[in-house]
């Protein structure tokens, strides 16, 4: 469970103070499939980064399973990212010199897994995201959609409690975007992993069961619906 209490974040650009988040209170239960929506500059990426321990709030608390992550050292945060949090980025951020298999292997370098177990996990997750035949391909030999599938596999391979996706479909065409969203939803149901993603795309919002709308650093709407279209 993720809980934020009165979360503020200010950025200082030159001499101007720019408030990105102005009092965010929310709760996301385990296994939710949540979109954080809003126009650019509304603070979605900032919120996601703070939840992902990549950034620190100026004021307020953020609790993950009851632990206030502000109080963690940078080592403790790295530990949390290593085991609990998977990231998917807008620009995929795969390492170009490595194959799909090797890219997915990277997070596992940090975990002490048996070689055989490691192999099984990587192959299984790549098959799950539909890339069973692309294991040996490098990023430049794959389409954007395929690359994002690798990124999703990379985020999920360590079996985290949550996956944070910052604009995962922004660099994809709408057909591919739909496929990626369907995949994420499927994985969310199957693995019971919490998925939180930011977007300004109506399509993405349609897929989510819960949409938190942000505007100027505040929550303006928190909408739930039973199930997204398939």
């Amino acid at each position: 469970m993720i809980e934020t209490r009165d979360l503020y974040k200010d950025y200082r650009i030159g001499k101007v103070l720019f408030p990105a988040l102005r009092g965010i209170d929310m709760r996301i239960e385990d296994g939710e499939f949540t979109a954080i929506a809003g126009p650019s500059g509304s603070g979605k990426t900032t919120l996601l980064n703070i939840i992902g321990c990549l950034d620190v709030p100026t004021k307020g608390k953020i609790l993950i399973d009851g632990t206030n992550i502000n109080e963690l050292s940078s080592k403790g945060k790295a530990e949390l990212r290593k085991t609990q949090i998977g990231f998917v980025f807008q620009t995929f951020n795969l390492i170009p010199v490595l194959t799909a298999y090797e890219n997915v292997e990277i997070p596992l370098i940090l975990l002490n897994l048996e070689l055989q177990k490691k192999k099984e996990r990587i192959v299984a997750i790549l098959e799950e995201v539909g890339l069973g035949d692309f294991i040996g391909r490098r990023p430049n030999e794959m389409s954007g959609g395929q690359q994002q599938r690798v990124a999703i596999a990379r985020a999920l391979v360590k079996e985290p409690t949550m996956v944070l996706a910052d604009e995962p479909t922004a660099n994809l065409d709408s057909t591919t975007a739909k496929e990626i969203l369907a995949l994420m939803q499927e994985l969310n149901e199957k693995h019971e992993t919490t998925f939180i993603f930011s977007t300004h795309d109506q399509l993405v919002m349609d897929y989510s069961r819960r949409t938190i709308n942000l505007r100027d650093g505040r929550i303006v709407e928190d909408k739930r619906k039973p199930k997204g279209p398939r």
Partner: protein
Amino acid sequence: MKLLNIAWRNVFRHTRRTIITAAAISVGLSSMIFMNTMMNGADKMASRNIIDFETSHLEVFARDYYREEGVFPLDTIIENPKYVNDRIEAIPGIKGVTPRVKFQASISNGIDELPVLGMGIDIENDRRIFETGNSVVAGRFLKNSGDVLIGTDLANDMSLEVGSYITIITKDRNGTYNALDLEVAGLLNTGHPLFDRNMAIIPIAEAQELLALEGGVTEICIRAIDEETLGPLKEKVSDEIGAQYEVFTWKELNAAIFEISGFKRAGQFMIGLVVVIIAAVGIINTMLMAVMERIPEIGTLKAMGFSNSRIVRMFIYEGGIIGALGSALGCLIGMLISIYLVQVGLDFSGLFENVDIVYPMKFIIKGEIDYVNMLYVFLFGIIVSVMVTLWPVRKATKLEPVDALRHV
């Protein structure tokens, strides 16, 4: 999948850049090896010239005879060489002993007069411990009284040839001028400038008579069986012959030359340093680019929980691999050049033709490979590469993951 493996792939992400950087390192290192080979070769040649022609391993003088190089007094000489000679010959570890008489003189061909170093040698014994007898290129070695050996360069300077007559003029022990007519028996080509340009060698008996030495000699040259243990041998000889004599090793007698050699080494080090700095700038540039263009990648790794030290290690491996490639290539090229220098050598005869160098060698300098030095150079290349990698990487890892991810 190991960090080293990832680093290896990253090294070949920009093959051309890697090759150019490695090439810069290899040029630097191979020139360091080249210089080292040359210096070693030159020093070895100089040493051989000194040992084989000039002093042999040890020299005995009467006490207070030896004041500085190039001075040949006649007031303090070894009056009873036979006694000294016999005592030395009895010491184990001695290969040969021979007396010599050195004196300042000038020779005249009837038109010109040139200052030379006169040297009286024991015709039989001298051949046993010196190479002089094997360096006669025209005519023959000393045989009869009245024979003189001179170097080819001196012969050219004075238009002399085998069979020419010269007069040697000197002051004897009592300060009286004395002269002797001699016939050129043979011409020497030793490779030692002193011998080829400034020396007149005559039988020792005639030198003794010319200088009124009454059987005395200026020095006794000793050749050891083992060249490496001259220190203890010197002590033994010194103990055996007593305090009215002094013993010097060939190195002590030529300290000035090895001082020059030290200067050359310092110069070599400075050149090496400049070359290494140039190569290091190349690596810094490459690694700086490699780091800057991969800052978002560093951010991604950090987001996945990679620690700074792990990321730094990955880049150190990259710098190390480039360094190792450059070093290996540099050592290979250096070795090939060195082998050429050992086999063929560099011909400096044209360069030094009319220069009076004090350094006792000339003609073709042959190299001498120092494999230990090569190993140091190899490790040095890698260490420098790793060191200069640290700076840009540490800067990049200091960025917060968010800033690194956002970096374009």
